[in-house]
């Protein structure tokens, strides 16, 4: 009896389809875009063609790459801080309903306050624009993780709760061995949104602090290119942002799949199980 599963997942041909379909659709969408723009003779300063964007990307590859590095750094730091902050706060909230209800409004306030409005204030107290930028990106990104994890930490199965109580589990054991695994899928669902928002946050934060940062990120490039009417370059930067978002989406997807694989296979085996070779 070997549990090192040999063909656990879906059949390989299905896997290929799953990879090929999005790529094929992507190709179709880009081709259609190219054709529409060319046939309708839409001028490149309004809507460039994908080929024009690709060309601009190649031409400006060096500043774009550097800018991507800046934005990516902000995004990743903000995301890490969002994960840390969101999870810790959620863990804190899980200890008491009253605490949760008392503090959640402040998290909501943070989330809904327009960055454009508070960036100047932050700048008064924090003189280093880089920190203001990170703080802004974090503010945008942390809420879904907090919210998701907070819900997940309360989703433990009643039977499991009983088990842990019966065996006199400490708070910490309950959190680590019961609540954390229970909350994992909820956390991951929040992460999926937060990854996007961290990217959005990095870009927005750069917009609101743009002038101040020495090394330009992608938002700066977009703004500058738009200001200078260089639509193709703006779209090149936009495309990099989109691609980054999509790559991170799939990375999170894979991470989810991997972390939850031991639980999800149930579905495979029960809904698609016999079909493996049948």
């Amino acid at each position, binding site marked *: 009896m070997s549990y090192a599963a040999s063909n656990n997942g879906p059949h390989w041909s299905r896997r290929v389809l799953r990879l090929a379909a999005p790529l094929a659709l992507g190709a179709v969408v880009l081709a259609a875009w190219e054709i529409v723009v060319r046939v309708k003779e839409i001028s490149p300063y309004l809507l460039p063609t994908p080929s024009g964007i690709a060309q601009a990307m190649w031409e400006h590859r060096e500043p774009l790459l550097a800018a991507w590095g800046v934005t990516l750094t902000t995004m990743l730091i903000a995301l890490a801080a969002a994960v840390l902050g969101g999870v810790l706060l959620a863990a804190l909230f899980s200890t008491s309903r009253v605490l949760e209800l008392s503090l959640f409004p402040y998290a909501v306030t943070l989330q809904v306050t327009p960055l454009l409005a508070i960036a100047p204030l932050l700048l008064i107290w924090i003189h280093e*624009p880089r920190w203001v930028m990170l703080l802004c990106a974090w503010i945008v990104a942390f809420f879904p993780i907090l919210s998701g994890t907070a819900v997940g930490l309360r989703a433990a199965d009643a039977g499991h709760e009983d088990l842990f109580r019966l065996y006199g589990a400490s708070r910490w054991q309950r959190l680590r061995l019961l609540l954390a695994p229970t909350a994992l899928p909820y956390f991951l669902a929040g992460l999926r949104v937060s990854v996007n928002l961290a990217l959005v946050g990095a870009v927005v934060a750069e917009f609101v*602090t743009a002038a*101040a940062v020495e090394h330009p990120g992608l938002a700066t490039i977009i703004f500058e290119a*738009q*200001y200078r009417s260089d639509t193709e370059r703006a779209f090149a930067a936009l495309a990099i942002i989109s691609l980054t978002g999509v790559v991170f989406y799939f990375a999170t997807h894979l991470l989810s799949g991997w972390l939850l694989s031991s639980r999800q296979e149930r579905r495979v085996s029960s809904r698609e199980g016999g079909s493996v070779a049948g």
Partner: protein
Amino acid sequence: LENVTLALNWKAQPELGGFYQALADGTYRDAGFDVKIRQGGPQINNRPLLAAGRVDFLIGTNLLQAFDAVKQQTPTRVVAAMLQKDPQCLIAHRGQGYDQWSDLTKAPLLMAATGRYSFFLWMEAAHGFQKRNLRPYNHSLAPFLANKTWIQQGYATAEPMRVEEATGEAPLVFLLADHGWDSYSTVIEAPQAAIDRQPERVQRFVDASIRGWYDYLYGDNRAANELIKRDNGAMTDAQIAFSLKQMKAQGLVDSGEAVENGIGAMRLERVRRFYQKMVDSGLLKAGEIDPDDAVTLQFVNQGVGLDLRPRVAGDQRAAGDK
């Protein structure tokens, strides 16, 4: 009446007052236009609307963007320049040792995004300002007020007054135009197609706008100011008065070439000179475009509206010209 949409580069303010005047006192209507004004703002970019044909005329902030349009082969051109001098300035608190323009280069500088990609690059190249001193400016004065050693960008017609209202003390103002930034400002841009196919229509609009500006500066501008205040809640009578005063005192509108050729006047030499400065600052490359393509003198320098200027305007000559 022909429907015409005019897109501004900012919210309604006295620095755009001539257009509101022409709208308010019927100058546009008399010229056969039913004009709709579309405001701009700090987060709003109306420029693509012009190329897309969604607006008929666009107010540009300076010539740099016109050069860029040529570079991107966007078929638009500057047809008139309402401000002979760009009101862009730097502001500093008094008593912080910023008495000279050259003292400013080392100070932390609050700069909005648009400035960072245009005149700041020139400041950097021509005067040695440094990127690492930049702080973001989102049109809230709070950071500047909180940090006395900081300086910030502004419009000579607006921010000084706002600072004075908040601190009770007028700040030091350094006009960029006085240090070599000699772009025209508040220029009217039009699509090439309109210039080619309906030059008469463009001419009518430019003329009416010019008349509007004369009337706004020298005539009864109350109706225009009412419109401005309606469109932009941030405007106050005091602010408007201050702006008007500054525009006159600094000779922003009616000076330079405008004195002889009327408001809106342009000269190719000045356009070329400014282009050279942009090349020197690294914003554009030498020979990349022909700066002459950015403008057309077809509709200006005709002395339109000179009759509306009061006689005493002669002493403006000294203030504006160099």
